């Protein structure tokens, strides 16, 4: 498994653990109330599981298994940029709801996530190809 996939998938697993923990606390609080402030974890619960877990896992697996140009996966820099932007965006959006941050923080987080999607798409686009094109691209 290539290094960017290891980082993306491990980060996805960390978000799964955090998202399940927040979800468990929310469900416990619904069954047997602990504290009303726990409801503030809901935006972080949703953001961590939707984007931090499932989207990030798909990116990690996608980078790993998409067709290559022989042994070469293309320029890796957009993938690292996507990794940084996605994780920054998830934490900005998720924690801003929990900490009642100003709405521009959510906007900044969403912009980071958009940047991550664009960088990842730019890297992956040429790898979505029939296998026979590998030799052509290398030339």
């Amino acid at each position, binding site marked *: *498994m290539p290094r960017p996939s*290891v980082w993306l*998938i*491990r980060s996805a697993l960390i978000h*799964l653990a955090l998202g*399940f*923990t927040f979800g*468990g606390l929310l469900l416990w609080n619904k069954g*047997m109330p602990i504290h009303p402030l726990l409801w503030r974890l809901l935006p972080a619960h949703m953001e961590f599981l939707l984007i931090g*877990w499932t989207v990030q896992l798909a990116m990690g697996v996608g980078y790993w298994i998409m067709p290559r140009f022989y042994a070469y996966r293309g320029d890796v820099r957009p993938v690292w940029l996507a990794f940084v932007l996605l994780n920054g965006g998830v934490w900005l959006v998720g924690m801003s709801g929990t900490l009642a941050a100003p709405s521009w923080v959510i906007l900044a987080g969403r912009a980071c996530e958009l940047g991550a999607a664009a960088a990842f798409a730019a890297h992956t686009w040429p790898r979505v190809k029939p296998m026979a094109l590998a030799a052509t691209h290398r030339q």
Partner: protein
Amino acid sequence: MPFLTRLFVKTALIYFVAALLVGVLLAARPVLGLSGVVAGLTPVYFHLLMVGWLTQLILGVAHWMFPRFSREAPRGRDWITWTIFGLLNAGLLLRVFAEPALNSSGAHMWGWLLVLAALLQWVAGMAFVVHLWPRVRGH
């Protein structure tokens, strides 16, 4: 495809259909004048999709496709994966019944069952993260 993967994927497919069935019920409620209990199924709908379908599908495919844990036990310890399967599904099914029941009756018993559902799913999530972590590695 290993047996446990087939079990995860087929169970995920059942949740997929069940989730969309609940989605139809939610959409039909105002049209057909269905009981208010149906309106309380919105969180059940989202969790059937996100936990029952998507996360469970990922668990099954990851168990099958990720790099080997070791030569002797390529997919780690099977009993841990069985436990994850059992806890996740027991917790999710408990939630499916306890959450609407708590909304409609308010009885304490349903609240405690919801706490149990939270614990079962949380333990399953943490066990999955810990069990898969060593398989997410470079060459």
